[in-house]
């Protein structure tokens, strides 16, 4: 058994030009942790998820490489954070796509796929190596549901 047999072959996808507001709507409405981002040819580019939203609400000096590791001296309110999100919500999601995500191939064995899910702690994109196209997504729920439905 391989990844292609347990994946969702028609996942919700985002495009780089989609706005942060659109992505936020999908994420909050469906409680997605990560959504795959693809180009016009269906090639996989990365993911955009709740982590990206958090990143957009934090000061740049904190989320950048070698940035501040703690900021207990700043006291902001929920309104401040909302204001920060409003400032960027009409911008494209391309400003914050997470490209460093482990992916699996359609023919990745089941146990290896499970290990990737366990290590990444989020849904895993299934990407064809040769074409770079996204062919599906695998969530904890997909795998667990199929395991429980399997005959013993």
């Amino acid at each position, binding site marked *: 058994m391989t990844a292609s047999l347990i994946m969702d072959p028609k996942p919700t996808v985002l495009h780089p030009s989609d706005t942060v507001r659109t992505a936020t709507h999908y994420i909050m409405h469906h409680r997605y942790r990560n959504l795959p981002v693809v180009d016009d040819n269906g090639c996989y580019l990365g993911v955009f998820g709740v982590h990206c939203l958090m990143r957009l609400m934090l000061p740049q000096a904190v989320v950048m490489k*070698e940035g501040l590791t703690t900021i207990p*001296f700043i006291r902001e309110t929920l309104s401040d954070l909302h204001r920060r999100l409003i400032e960027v919500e009409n911008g494209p999601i391309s400003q914050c796509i997470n490209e460093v995500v482990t992916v699996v191939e359609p023919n990745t064995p089941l146990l290896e796929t499970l290990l990737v899910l366990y290590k990444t702690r989020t849904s895993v994109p299934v990407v064809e190596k040769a074409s770079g196209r996204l062919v599906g997504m695998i969530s904890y729920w997909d795998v667990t549901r199929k395991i429980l439905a399997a005959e013993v």
Partner: protein
Amino acid sequence: MVTEGTEAVRLLLGMDPAWFAGVLFVMTYVVIMTDRLNRAIVSLMAAGLMIAAGLLNQEAALHGIDFNTIGLLTGMMIIVTITKKSGIFQYLAIWSAKKVDARPWGILVMLAVVTAVLSALLPNVTTVLMIAPVTLLITDALKVNPYPYLFAQLFAANIGGTATLIGDPPNIMIGTAANLTFNDFLVNLAPLMVVVFAATMLPIYLIWGRTLTSTPEQRQRVLDYREADAITDRRLLWQSLSVLAVVITGFALADVLHVEVATVAMFGASLLLLLDNLPRSPSEQNKVVEQTFAEIEWQTIFFFIGLFILVYGLGTTGLMEDVAHDLLELTGGNAKVTAISLLWASAVASAFVDNIPYVATMIPLIKNMAPSLGGPQALVPIWWSLSLGACLGGNGTLVGSSSNLIIASFAERTGRPIRFLPFLLMAFPLMLLSLLISTVYVYLRYL
């Protein structure tokens, strides 16, 4: 001088030892300058070849390593690694910003002053790594261009580093080689650096000062920062400040106490390690000490070790004496001309190549000039010229010092990169201004 291996070189390679060492030395520099290979690997490989070829034996190679420089650097790195966990750097940056009522130009000056003072007492790279992120946080809140702030800090780091024995690695090497103490640097270079700093800030003000504006609301956001909350560990803060005070006092009294600065730094480092780990369980101590040691810049340390062996090996061939003689012929054996020429040549060289290998090479060359110039005392202005040129030269280009590259990487991350050529066009004239001031100072005070 240990030259047991000289005969072996002739037998092994059929080459004159001076030729072998000279070619190896030049090749090492060329490879370091290309940036294609890690500089620590290059210098260690060159040192290894010196030994493998028989020019030095292992004992002689170890003899060539300046452990005073190595010990001082390592000790200060340990102290800074522990100290920074307390949040003191963020505290200082925020405190200084609030002291000027969060006015954009005032903040620029204050952060530059903080950077200069910290760079004088701590490694420059660590200082900018700590101050630059807070700077970007503040400029983000004020909605002002971070470029002038980073530009000023870049200059401040190199100027501050020039002011003391421990501020910049070239000074550590010069101090050790020339028996110049912490107080010597403080008395001779620190006042000059105050003038150079002020002179540098003036053009920065004229270029950017009046364009830096922000609204009262934006300034209020900075004023709302609670600097006291930046201190994450008060106990560690006091321990660190106490140890730093002991170490700085130790540096100042090193001559009277007849101890080397490396001893003072390593003692301070071990004392702070002890204080930091005393309340922890043995297993926790292992973890914390391992983390602390992991943050030491081992690449720099091993780069130094390899370089010291390489330059020492070169010195044993007598090549340095010949080059020193040739250089003195160029300056007519005149101490004034030699000192001023060295200041400017060192600055231009250090603007484009790493000042550490440059100074490592110049030290034995200058030592060899002593007999012709009238003894070690006659070298004093030349040592100051080397220090001023090598340290201030770092401001000339973006690749002039490690701290420049760190600041450039932060600028890149904000989406406002510091480009090599535009930076050169602004920074090089400012560096020349600092050299002009230094030249007048050296001439009037020592020549």
